[in-house]
């Protein structure tokens, strides 16, 4: 019988457009104090720490070195993943599955407000010899992909805008979300063009925040928490980086990451077995594309379903009840952590005004953003 992995505690800051009162250190410290308090542990009880950090975003070379103090991880086993929080979560889960570690802490942080030239940093993710000399924005990658997605009849332009309307409205019920608003499809369609067909309101605005999670082995879960949330499945995958020959219509890596997580969780019919999903919606259409990649909707059906309210908080499959990236903000490496946070609150029945009744199994999906194809998926249950 394989060891199971529980989330025994979670701590988080508010997600805000700026956070001038705190450095990255105090943001993570705040989240860590809350997470450890929930699990009733101290840093000395932790067997390993997994941080999430990307040098160019932090503005430090080897930024992993700067993760330790604020987690109480000085002189302890620490490693840092330059990916999404969900990639770090996968590492944390693996540590526990080795049965050599009982308690593992996983952290992620966004200090997007401190990054003053984000479009240029993202541009540096493109190939220096073949792509960068063309002097095109990295947002073009989203435009190219969305155009092909629409051309293939996967969704209508209006259906993509409906995702923005829904998620920003959802965020109004989330006190931690920074970008809640009541807007219409027309607001989205008439917002400034960025990289057509992508318009300004299609893009998740940046936000700051930190999340820390305490994982533990099943055998000690009862001693740390009376409301464990179980990580039933986790998977990750990446496509080729090449912009010249990637699949411009479907999120293939998301499908593979999802299938890996489903296999581990023993899920055969995702659309029937998942009660709610937190999906990467960094660009509006990505939510629809990702839902279909994850087999939660048939190809070409997610847009219609969104219009029909199937993915609304009262619908059959609530998607991004938290507000998602469009409503909470784009948290870079911390994006997947905000999704796990929402699932934990929902599965424990602690989501307040936005509580989804009867939520038992949730799916969190991360994508590393433009221009990447890297994805990770986690399946959580109460």
């Amino acid at each position, binding site marked *: 019988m394989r060891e199971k992995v529980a989330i025994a505690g979670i701590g988080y800051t508010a997600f805000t457009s700026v956070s001038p009162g705190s*450095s*990255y250190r105090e943001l993570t410290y705040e989240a860590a104090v809350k997470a450890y308090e929930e699990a009733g542990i101290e840093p000395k009880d932790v067997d390993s720490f997994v941080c999430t950090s990307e040098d*160019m975003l932090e503005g430090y070379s080897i930024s992993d070195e700067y993760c330790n103090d*604020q987690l109480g991880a000085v002189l302890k086993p620490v490693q840092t993943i330059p990916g999404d929080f969900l990639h770090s979560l996968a590492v944390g889960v693996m540590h526990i599955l080795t049965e050599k570690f009982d308690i593992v802490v996983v952290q992620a942080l966004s200090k997007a407000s401190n*990054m003053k030239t984000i479009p240029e*940093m993202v541009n540096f993710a493109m190939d220096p010899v073949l792509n960068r*000399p063309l002097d095109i924005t990295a947002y073009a990658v989203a435009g190219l992909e969305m155009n092909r997605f629409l051309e293939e009849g996967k969704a209508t332009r209006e259906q993509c805008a409906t995702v923005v309307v829904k998620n920003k409205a959802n965020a109004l019920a989330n006190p931690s979300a920074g970008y809640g608003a009541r807007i219409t499809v027309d607001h989205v369609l008439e917002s400034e063009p960025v990289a057509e067909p992508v318009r300004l309101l299609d893009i998740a605005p940046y936000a700051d925040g930190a999340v820390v999670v305490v994982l533990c082995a099943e055998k000690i879960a009862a001693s740390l928490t009376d409301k464990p949330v179980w990580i039933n499945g986790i998977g990750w995958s990446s496509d080729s980086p090449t912009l010249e020959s990637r699949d411009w219509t479907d999120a293939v890596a998301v499908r593979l990451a999802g299938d890996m997580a489903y296999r581990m969780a023993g899920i055969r019919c995702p659309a029937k077995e998942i009660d709610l999903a937190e999906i990467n919606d960094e660009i509006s259409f990505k939510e629809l594309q990702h839902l279909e990649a994850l087999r939660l909707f048939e190809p070409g059906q997610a847009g219609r379903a969104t219009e029909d309210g199937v993915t609304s908080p009262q619908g059959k499959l609530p998607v991004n009840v938290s507000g998602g990236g469009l409503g909470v903000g784009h948290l870079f490496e911390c994006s997947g952590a905000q999704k796990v946070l929402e699932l934990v609150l929902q599965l424990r029945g602690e989501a307040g005004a936005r509580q989804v009744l009867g939520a038992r199994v949730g799916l969190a999906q991360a994508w590393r953003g433009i221009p990447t194809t890297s994805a990770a998926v986690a399946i959580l249950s109460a």
Partner: protein
Amino acid sequence: MELEKFELGATPLKESAMKDGKVLTLHKKPNLKYAWDNGPAIDRYLAELKKGRIIARKCNKCRRIMIPPRMFCELCWRPTDEWVYVEDTGVVNTFSICYVNWDASRIKKGDKPHLPAVIEIDGASDGMGILHVLGEVEPDKVKIGMKVKAVWKKPEEREGAITDILYFKPMRG
């Protein structure tokens, strides 16, 4: 760095080949700008430097007086408790004599080498110090354990930065 000086064991790419356009050469200057929020501890530290003072934070559990100051004690895992002014004097813990600049380019002939040093500050706990540079001293006269004192910029020139201290110089006697 001059590529010509390296034996690569194959046909080496010469710097001149790039200069003369014989190989594809792409130039793009990264425009990476960050505006780090310092947080309350480093904000106050810098504000005090502007006033010509060095401030530390004390943890009442391990009783360490820490610089640079921090809002939490990374060893006790609790918030720190009080602000404490410390001296602008200290002892050289370790130093190096650098004949290259920050970007590893060689210093000009006749220029003095850089003298980075870790200075354990008087009034702070053992091992707590400031990484800075030494001045008004010949490189061969620098010793570990040497007493030093901060030389400050003029008040009107200070800007709330670690460079408000120009350097540390040896104390007489």
